């Protein structure tokens, strides 16, 4: 069955989820991965509608309607305290999409260039320090694997990777587990907790990976596995749950992205109401 890169990545991300944990839906990729997992191998997942609330909902990727999903589906409202308690208790999973990730799995969403006077000021560490000091599994994904996003050393550590500081202060709590990019799947089990190849996506060569990575990647043995293709069932779940193709936005840029953005924004209320007819609370 034909599939696209976003669908391959989402299915790959879905395979990582297991158990009875909360799963945050920050991005379309993360939300769809959680849904695929829940509908296939991980039925006990507690999927959230937004980064912080609306437990027990079926995600519908949108630009503006996450909280409305909680309302129309009568999701369980949560407080921020409950979200962070779930993080501290290691009962929370999230796919984080950093601007930079380095060879030891440190991640950056704060600043490109020096933090004090950045070349590009990004958004700020948000809740990543909490995740990378408490969770037993930390998942990252990068859509455009290149030497500017997969770097030797991040400009700022918003999230803690592997290294002596982690060993001394945190142990394994919050250590990076996995990175999925548009080229392949990577672990952080190389020398000194560095990035190592686990599988290459279909059609991707080891040379492509090395060319588009700012440091030497380890783990290239004779026979490297190929990332499994999404199944027909997984593809059906993704496509049904994301009729407006919000997932495609993350891979587009320029005019195409702008056009798609407007089309989704104009149509998403209708899509929500078709899926869940609105009911008034008062």
């Amino acid at each position, binding site marked *: 069955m034909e599939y696209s890169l976003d669908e391959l990545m989402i299915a790959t991300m879905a395979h990582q989820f297991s158990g009875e944990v909360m799963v945050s839906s920050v991005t379309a990729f993360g939300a769809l991965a959680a849904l695929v997992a829940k509908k296939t191998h991980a039925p006990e997942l507690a999927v959230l509608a937004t980064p912080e609330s609306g437990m027990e909902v079926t995600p519908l990727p949108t630009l503006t309607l996450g909280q409305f999903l909680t309302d129309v589906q009568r999701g369980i409202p949560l407080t*921020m305290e409950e979200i962070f308690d779930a993080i501290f208790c290691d009962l929370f999973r999230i796919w984080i999409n950093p601007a930079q990730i380095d060879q030891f799995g440190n991640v950056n969403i704060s600043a490109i260039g020096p933090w004090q006077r950045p070349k590009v000021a990004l958004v700020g560490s948000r809740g990543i320090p909490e995740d990378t000091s408490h969770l037993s599994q930390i998942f990252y994904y990068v859509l455009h694997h290149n030497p500017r996003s997969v770097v030797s050393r991040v400009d700022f550590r918003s999230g803690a990777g592997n290294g002596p500081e*982690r060993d001394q202060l945190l142990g394994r709590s919050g250590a990076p587990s996995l990175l999925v990019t548009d080229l392949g799947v990577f672990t952080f089990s190389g020398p000194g907790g560095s990035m190592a190849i686990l599988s290459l996506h279909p059609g991707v060569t080891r040379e492509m990976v090395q060319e588009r990575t700012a440091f030497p990647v380890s783990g290239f043995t004779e026979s490297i596995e190929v990332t499994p293709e999404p199944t027909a069932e997984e593809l059906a779940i993704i496509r049904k749950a994301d009729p407006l193709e919000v997932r495609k936005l993350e891979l587009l840029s320029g005019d195409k992205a702008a056009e798609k953005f407007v089309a989704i924004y104009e149509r998403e209320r209708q899509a929500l109401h078709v899926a869940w007819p609105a009911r008034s609370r008062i």
Partner: protein
Amino acid sequence: MNKTLTAEAMVEQISDGASITIGGSSLSRKPMALVRALARSGRKNLTLIVNVGGPEVDLLLGLGVVTKVIYAFVGFEVMGLAPNFRRARQNSNVTFEEWTEYTVMAGLDAAIKRVPFLPTRAGLGTDVLAVNPSFRTITDPFGGETLVAVPAIHPDFALIHVNYADERGNGVILGDGHIDVLCAKAAKTTFMSCERILHGDELQRFGRDVQIMRIHTQGVAELPWGAHPTGCAPEYRADLRHMEEYMEATGDLERWHAYQDRMVWVDHEQYLDRMGGREGLVSRLHV
């Protein structure tokens, strides 16, 4: 006690140099009508304290009335980076202190609990500790472990916007709560705007959704669409068309001043008219 006040009367109580914590999260339920009233008041040298900041931080930075920002995140979510925040971070005299989501909550909670700090592991192994002079590491007196001490944050004021309130200052939040409750409890003075004021016992039927308790509130204002251009679930979504217009306006000084004239230096009713009036807003944004 009837605590209803106009937005203008609320911001009148805020003095130059005040520290203000603001509820909501990026493009969700920001008290934008109160923030615009604050902008019109001419108050300056403000310290802003946010967990997840958005257009409120960006607007006040763009007006040059902010000297310090404590934040875990400032951005426009699906719309990308906040332009005035980005500019100020890259080149200005504004002091920025990067915290994290839980540490902002812990700082406010420490103030509420009247303790000087709360300990956490969040931040260990990151550069947040290196750039944020407010944090210290401490040794656990029981087990000897290294932890981060998050100092109490004592805001002078909190500004929040909720779905419904009563005249006494109880508030109902129906969508995500964000950290509004912590803001309301930690601040010395809390001002709350709402979509609608409910009377008598109408509010109490909302049970646990009455998240803001009147013992923490000093003023209430009925300001329908008061979160615009951010959203207020489950009633209206964020106005991404307007956010686009805003972002374009920040691109040069002339357009930025024109934007202020049209959207900031007008009262709330005029603002809503310029957004297409209530009917126009309903058709574009009501969900």
